[in-house]
């Protein structure tokens, strides 16, 4: 019998111990050192992380600087296009804390989604798109904060390729010369969820919605922690540093019960191409390997994740599964939306929950948020917009946290 030979107890004990990694033993080179060497040779400019920043520990025990403000928000097309409450929540949080940032119009998406879906591009084009965006950020003096998990993963990988292949650097520099732009690489590639992570205690200090009776499952985003794995945040206090700490760290700070489930490592089923033109795969995987497993094992009130594709896939895949009597019906939110919700963001003006497909009403009710009242307020906004009385909702209307019923 296998159990006679497998030292199960010893394995479990080892797994229970936090992992403390020595950066000197890291299995990979520190890319940032190579980056500074290239800068010293005059090959590129390194965009330094501005003060104030917080240092976090990454997978192999190295330190990573996460800027608090003076950030250039590299938006996500999937968030802005299809889940705008995701982007709005990130900006709302920055405004609540009075932080200095830029929401640029001199930005394209990374175009990585298309590249992973169709391969109708090439390495140099992808590097040039990234470098154009980084140069645009550098010109403003603000540091890139990447909203999309795919852009973040793609840029981490692209940065590695740029550093390791001179032929790519030469080609990208030639193109940037034509655009009148320098070749700039940020000192750190920073994902917004890392910013949320380092802000989590400040967010918790301003929490107005009690979430201690809520159970959540976390879906860690593949392109956040699997691509260039060494760059993701790990913390001995969270999962003993055996899984990434982002998202879970925030939820714990907000008092939410984070429930584990067996398929946490699985991807969501997005597939890039699949979610657009071959959704049988996406739907099946999202439901059978994620949502239904969560339902069966821990029956969460919500799923929280930190990437565009994961929110879209896990949320939108649940409708069709109902017809097959699958166990579904768990609302899906980003960590930024949960953080904003905890601080009292308006469910429709800010969180834009009406863009989500899986029913979020039971969650609102469990949280004591009178969504019907706020929906009526929002309908009045829409009517006023339709009548031409106002061009749209402004930050002045959206900034104010909702009044919570006693």
């Amino acid at each position, binding site marked *: 019998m296998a159990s006679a030979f497998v030292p199960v107890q010893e394995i479990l004990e080892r797994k229970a111990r936090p992992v403390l990694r020595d950066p000197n033993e890291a299995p990979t080179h520190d890319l940032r050192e190579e980056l500074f060497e290239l800068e010293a040779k005059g090959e590129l400019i390194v965009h330094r992380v501005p003060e104030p920043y917080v240092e976090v520990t990454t997978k192999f025990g190295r330190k990573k600087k996460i800027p608090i403000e003076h950030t250039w928000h590299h938006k996500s*097309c999937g968030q802005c296009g299809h889940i705008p409450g995701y982007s709005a929540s990130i900006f709302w949080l920055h405004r609540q804390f009075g932080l200095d940032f830029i929401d640029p119009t001199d930005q394209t*998406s990374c*175009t990585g989604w298309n590249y992973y879906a169709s391969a109708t591009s090439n390495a140099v084009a992808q590097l040039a798109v990234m470098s*154009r965006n980084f140069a645009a950020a550098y010109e403003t003096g603000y540091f890139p904060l990447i909203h999309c998990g795919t852009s973040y993963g793609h840029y981490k990988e692209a940065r590695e390729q740029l550093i390791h292949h001179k032929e790519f650097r030469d080609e990208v520099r030639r193109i940037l010369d034509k655009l009148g732009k320098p070749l700039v690489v940020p000192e750190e590639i920073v994902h917004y969820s890392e910013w949320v992570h380092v802000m989590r205690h400040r967010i918790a200090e301003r929490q107005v919605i009690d979430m201690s009776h809520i159970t959540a499952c976390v879906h860690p985003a593949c392109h956040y922690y699997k691509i260039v794995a060494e760059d993701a945040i790990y913390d001995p206090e969270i999962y003993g540093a055996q899984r990434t700490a982002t998202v879970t760290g925030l939820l714990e700070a907000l008092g939410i019960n984070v429930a584990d489930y067996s398929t946490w490592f699985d991807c969501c089923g997005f*597939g890039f191409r*699949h979610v657009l033109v071959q959704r049988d795969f996406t739907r099946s995987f999202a439901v059978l390997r994620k949502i239904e497993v969560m339902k069966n094992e821990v029956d969460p009130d919500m799923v929280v994740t930190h990437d565009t594709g994961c929110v879209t896939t896990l949320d*939108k895949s649940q409708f069709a599964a109902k017809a097959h009597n699958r166990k579904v019906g768990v609302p899906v939110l980003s960590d930024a939306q949960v953080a904003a919700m905890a601080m009292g963001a308006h469910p429709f003006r800010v969180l834009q929950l009406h863009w989500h*497909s899986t029913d979020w009403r039971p969650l609102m009710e469990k949280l004591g948020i009178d969504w019907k009242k706020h929906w009526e307020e929002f309908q009045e906004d829409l009517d006023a*917009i339709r009548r031409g009385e106002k061009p749209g*909702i402004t930050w002045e209307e959206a900034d104010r946290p909702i009044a919570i019923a006693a």
Partner: protein
Amino acid sequence: MDWISAKPTKYADVPYEEKLRLFMEVKNDPRYEDFLYGCYECGICVSACPSARFYDYSPRVIAQTMAREDVDRFYEIMVEDIWNCAQCFSCVRCPRQNNPGGLVTLIREVAVKNGLKEARDVLQGYSRVIYKVMLKGNQVSPDMLQPDFFPDWGPWVREFSENMHVWRKAIPVDTLRGVTDAAWRTDEKTLVELYTIWFETDNVDIVREVDEGLYELLLDVMEEALEEWQEEVA
């Protein structure tokens, strides 16, 4: 003949030299050496792979085939398998530091660049996304959320498309408010710079291999925008 399985070689009508040419195109990509270091056949990548659960597909076979330089099998993978990959990169937990998903990206790129029929077939119906990403610099936009394309997303899509214009105005973010044909408002100069990148990297020619009509359309719009911009700055 496949020397391991003793099965007849598939796609025998395609000359070996042609398969070898395509294989070498993948192998000569500067990224190739970062993606493959040999393979233990341990199957860890397969256990992590979502597509392996759903399709007759294996990242291990891809890594093995490339490491063995089995050109015939490589061609089969190029024709039959690569589009199943979800590009999630769960397979990079490979103890050999391989990146099977990255190998798939390289093979896909070569399939597209060489206009393989299978690649063109797979990307049929995807052209509107390429159109958007090339011209707007965004992969998706609100106006792509149409009930005909997303019936399985439920009644929500219909509700959305009926209210799209007013819902878009009801977003407090300045760069998003009211924008329906892109994810956010982008400067004209930014788009001209993007088009310059597409031309300078021959990315437009790649699109031609997939969809000639789309290529012509993109060329018209981008060339006109570049000309107008040059006149404006002159």
